[in-house]
């Protein structure tokens, strides 16, 4: 059920918000043991939120745009009074005394908190396997991963455990799991959405965005969370357009660029390539002009990212030292051993690996060769996009080189795992908005995602193209086997 449809049913009194929460909790009970999308299902809170909506409706009050919409929130977004763990032992018992801006805006718009979802520890990973609290599995095939780092949110939406969800995207952490789970995932322009209350991984790349079952729902969520915030200096002051009104615009004359570098990848799964190219044909049929375009530095994104993101992370995660809050090692001999024991016991392997990489990249004698060089390449990547957007309105790529892989595939090889973000990272480095939406299925019935990237602050354009494609293609109706978790 789409948000607009739900709103109508609620207003007509056909279903109450409490009844919807009942349904959602029932669904969670039914499937989440297999999926483990949720770290915490906030039952009491969900009912309290829902009851407020129902009371308002009975009192004849006008209902806010997301009234009664049950949402799941990635567990790196601070929720006041509710554990926010980042799927890390370090923050296992951390209860924030403040609310993130994005969630505050959602609750103010009537949304209902259904629970907090699993992620790769501190959002570092592409499969949700680095969570300290267990892996999340893909609803389409529970031997496979849901992608990551926002795997819990993607799986929860895909499995119908909530109507929509929030994730965060530093190098593809919304789009790649959206692609793996066959849902829509949007990473807004850097600064379009406030980062206040988002536990930082790499501050210059992190951005919060929605997961939804359809493009219109993603637009509805973005509408609420986007906009200036005095608590985040990097949040843009630009006013927020009406995202929904642009959706129905036809694509006549829209110029779509296929980034040639993306389609030449060695590791690109044949079915993924085929599916995305056929999506390009469909866009052409809808009136878009298709052209190939070159972004020569596109494939340097991953190397650049794995210097910049760990560098920022090494500083962002320095605060977890056992002094003020969170986990502290039980036994230590001195201040420095308290810090080191706390950090080696509190952080998992992947987090430690990235802290070490980042510390190294910023060290005297290496900072020029690594961190500063990476910043220069980042500028070149941004320029590639700038010149591309002189020729086209949106860029089209696969979201990920493959469909969802089996759990454990990359357990012994972090570098091969990193490659799954190859196609999503450049948009983060350039601060551009990008969306992933389903465009087909592979032979084993796993969803394939396509990525659209637009120029800065052109989310409307992105949503319009995505919506028109979604409406014309009806991809989800073509699922060969359907969910392994039956509805």
């Amino acid at each position: 059920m789409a948000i607009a449809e739900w709103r109508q049913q609620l207003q007509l009194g056909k279903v109450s918000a409490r009844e919807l929460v009942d349904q959602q909790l029932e669904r969670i009970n039914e499937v989440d043991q297999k999926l483990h999308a949720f770290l915490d299902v906030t039952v009491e809170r969900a009912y309290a939120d829902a009851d407020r909506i129902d009371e308002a409706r009975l009192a004849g009050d006008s209902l806010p745009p997301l009234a009664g919409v049950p949402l799941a929130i990635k567990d790196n977004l601070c929720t006041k009074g509710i554990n926010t763990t980042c799927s890390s032992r370090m923050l296992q018992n951390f209860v924030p005394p403040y609310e993130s801006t994005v969630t505050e805006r959602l609750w103010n718009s009537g949304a209902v908190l259904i629970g907090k979802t699993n992620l790769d520890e501190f959002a570092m990973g592409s499969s949700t396997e680095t969570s300290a609290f267990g892996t999340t599995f893909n609803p389409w095939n529970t031997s496979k991963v849901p992608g990551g780092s926002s795997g819990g949110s993607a799986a929860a939406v895909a499995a119908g455990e909530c109507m929509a969800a929030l994730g965060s995207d530093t190098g593809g952490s919304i789009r790649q799991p959206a692609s793996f789970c066959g849902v829509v995932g949007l990473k807004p322009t850097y600064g379009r959405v406030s980062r206040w209350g988002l536990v930082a991984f790499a501050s210059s790349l992190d951005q919060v965005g929605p997961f939804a079952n359809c493009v219109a729902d993603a637009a509805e969520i973005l509408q609420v969370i986007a906009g200036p915030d005095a608590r985040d200096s990097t949040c843009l002051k630009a006013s927020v357009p009406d995202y929904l009104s642009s959706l129905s615009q036809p694509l006549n004359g829209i110029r779509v660029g296929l980034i040639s570098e993306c389609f030449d990848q060695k590791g690109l799964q044949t079915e993924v390539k085929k599916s995305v190219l056929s999506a390009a044909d469909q866009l052409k049929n809808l009136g878009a002009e298709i052209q190939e375009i070159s972004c020569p530095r596109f494939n340097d994104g991953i190397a650049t990212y794995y210097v910049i993101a760990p560098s920022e992370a090494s500083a962002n995660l320095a605060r977890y030292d056992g002094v003020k809050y969170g986990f502290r090692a039980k036994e230590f001999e001195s201040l420095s051993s308290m810090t080191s024991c706390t950090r080696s016991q509190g952080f998992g392997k992947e987090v430690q690996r990235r802290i070490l990489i980042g510390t190294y990249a910023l060290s005297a004698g290496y900072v020029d060769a690594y961190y500063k060089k990476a910043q220069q390449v980042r500028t070149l990547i941004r320029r590639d996009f700038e010149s591309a957007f002189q020729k086209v309105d949106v860029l089209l790529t696969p979201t990920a080189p493959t469909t969802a892989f089996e759990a454990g595939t990359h357990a012994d090889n972090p570098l091969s795992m990193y490659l799954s973000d190859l196609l999503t990272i450049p948009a983060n480095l350039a601060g551009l908005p990008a969306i992933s939406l389903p465009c087909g299925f592979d032979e084993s019935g796993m969803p394939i995602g396509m990525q659209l990237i637009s120029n800065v602050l052109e989310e409307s354009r992105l949503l319009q193209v995505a919506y028109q494609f979604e409406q014309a293609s009806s991809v989800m109706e073509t699922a060969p086997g359907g969910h392994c978790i039956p509805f």
Partner: protein
Amino acid sequence: MSESDLTWEAVIGLETHVQLGTNSKIFTAASTTFGDEPNTHIDPIVCGLPGTLPVLNQKVLQYAVKAALALNLNIAEQSKFDRKQYFYPDLPKNYQISQFDEPIAEDGWIDVEVAEKGKETYTKKVGIERLHMEEDAGKLVHAGSDRLAGSTHSLVDYNRAGVALAEIVSKPDLRTGREAAEYAAEIRRIMRYLGVSDGNMQEGSLRCDVNISVRQGPNAPFGTKVEIKNMNSFSAIQKACEYEIQRQINAYENAELVVQETRLWDESKQLTKSMRSKEGSSDYRYFPDPDLGPIEVSKELRESWRAELPELPAAKRTRYIEELGLSAYDARVLTDEYSMAYYFEEVVSSGADAKSGSNWITGDIAAYLKSTRQSFVDLPFKPKQLAEMINMINDGKISGKIAKEILPELLAHGGSPQKIVADRGLGMISDPEVITEIIDELLKDHPNEVEAFRAGKKKLQGFFVGQLMKKTSGKADPKLVNKILIKKLSD
């Protein structure tokens, strides 16, 4: 002093941390109040809780730019914040938000007046490398030891964490301990004039670290640099430098090494002692803080802040000497505190002469304020009233003696000197006829003394003046008394 001492020259530079006196911290609204219960002025941002973000307090930017303008620094139209990383529990995020390679201001100077007893006062132009903004750290309290090492446990107070600092780095232009102390005092004076800091060294709102080395003559290469910390007063800065200069000279002359290190000034023992060696500089892994955008100061904003700057101490000193005819010493004393200089200027603009104003202010009034621990701002005796009193003396309406008599009342309660003099009947007798009458009577009463005077015992003039003052309760105009007395006695 051995002969070779003559060739040694010290090279001194100061790093001064000035707490900017904003009500709230540099990146959050938490209060900056000093001296309250530990951890009462903290919030999630101060504590570096996950998900929190810093936002630059615009008042801090304004104060920093004003300070920089007063130090003749060039203001960067665009600068940035960086993260300086090191693990220590007084640093909530384990990095300090500071400015590394693009500070808000660079390349300035100030004129420092160097005055020392027994030596000629001179003005020295001291270069200033840069000024940058940063956040202060919290404070550790160690149980069972004054240091982390050896303590049973340590407590941390984050009240000071996140308080805005301006770090001012001088060029290595200073040559003596006195110059270093005078430079620091001038920095403090300027900050207080601007109202951007109270410069209280005891409370730590002004902290100076000294970098010091010695070399044989002005053309020799710099010697090994030693950093000295922990000086709580200007005289401590001077003494620490002087001690350290001698220590380094002695070391070189005894063929010992001076090692690059940080030393602490021990006020009770009056010496510096080694704190930690600094072989190679620490690696702080600086990088631009991605949570804070560029710091922008447009020309318009900069100039509007420049227009708000008050006249600074050096300019006042020059003006007092050149335009008001005061001595360099008086000018220096009067301008030391902005409140005193302001009071003085109000007295002068109320019509009193500058020299008298200066004498009263730097003398009796300053002494009174010191003894009662008040400042010029609190004084009930207003500049207009002091000017009135000065003019009464100059116009011969009261004597200096009477003025001193009524001063305590004026200092304590203020009021009109004219009214007090009238109420108490203290006005001066300046009518020649009245004085002549009293003198005639006096001479008639003391025929022997008159005889003796006329015989050449001129010292007796003092006796007659004394007697006359006694008779008139000191109210007779002394000039007139002497004039008439001499005339009468020589008749």
